[in-house]
C-alpha cells in the first residue's frame, strides 16, 4: 500500500474522474492560500499552474472544509513522459507555476 497523507484521500467524482480530497480547517493558512489561488481572479492567469479545484465542500460544523482537486498522473518518476520535448514542457510549467506562487507571496514548502 502506498503512503497516504492523513489529511488527503483519493476518490472519484460523480462523473468518474479521479480526484484528490484534502481536508483543511477554515481558519488555517492552507485554506486561505487555496482559496486565493483558486479564486476567479487568479485562475485565468496563464502562469497559474496550480492544480485546479473541482469543488469546495464546507461542512455544517463551520470549521471543516473539503477541497476536491483533480488528480493528475502518478508521480514524477513513474510518469509516462517519453520525449525530451515533453520533459522540457513539464519542467517549464513547473518552474512557471512556482514563480507564479512566489510572485504572490506563497511558498511551496515541500520541493
Amino acid at each position, binding site marked *: 500500500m502506498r503512503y497516504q497523507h492523513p489529511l488527503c484521500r483519493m476518490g472519484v467524482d460523480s462523473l468518474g474522474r479521479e480526484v484528490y480530497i484534502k481536508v483543511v480547517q477554515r481558519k488555517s493558512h492552507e485554506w486561505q492560500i487555496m482559496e486565493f489561488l483558486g479564486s476567479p481572479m487568479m*485562475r485565468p492567469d496563464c502562469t497559474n499552474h496550480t492544480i485546479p479545484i473541482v469543488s469546495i465542500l464546507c461542512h455544517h460544523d463551520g470549521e471543516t472544509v473539503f477541497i476536491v482537486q483533480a488528480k493528475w498522473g502518478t508521480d514524477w518518476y513513474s510518469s509516462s513522459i517519453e520525449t525530451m520535448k515533453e520533459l522540457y514542457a513539464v519542467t517549464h510549467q513547473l518552474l512557471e507555476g512556482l514563480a507564479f506562487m512566489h510572485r504572490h507571496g506563497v511558498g511551496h514548502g515541500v520541493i
Partner: protein
Amino acid sequence: MAMAFAPESEVLGRSQYGSRPGPITCTYQRENLNTVMWTISSIFSTFSQYFFLRLASLFPSKYNNLMSAEKEPKFDWANWRERDTTNEWDKCSPFLESHGVFLLGTEAYFKTPLPPSSPALSPFLPTPDEDFVYRLMPYTVRRKFFYSYVRASF
C-alpha cells in the same frame, strides 16, 4: 307537560343512542369520528415523513444534506491534528457521497461510471464534460488501486 316530554327523551336518548338525547349524541359521535380520523392522519403523516426521508436519502443531493444536518457527525479536529484520521474519514464519507464525491475503497466508488473520453482542452480549466487527463487506455474497468496509466495533455 312532564308526561309529554318524558317519552320523547326516552326514544331519542336511551333507547337508540344511550343515555344522552339524540342531537347531543350525534355530535358526540362526530367528535369520536374526528378523533379517530385525526389519529389516523397523524400516524399516516408520521410514517409518510419517515418514508419520504428514507426515500430521499437514496438520492444524493444538496437537499438531503440539509435535512440530515442535525444527524451529521461532528469531526474531532484533535484527531485530525494527531493524524489518526481513519475514523474521521469514515465519518465524512456519507457527507462526501451526498455531494457526489466517493472515497477510494467505498462501495459507491466502484459503481461510478467511466470518466468522459475527451481530455480537457485546458488542463487548468477543465469543464464538466472533460476528463482531467489524457488516458492511454480509455474504457478500461476501474481498478482497485490507482495504477491507471495517465499522462498530462499538452
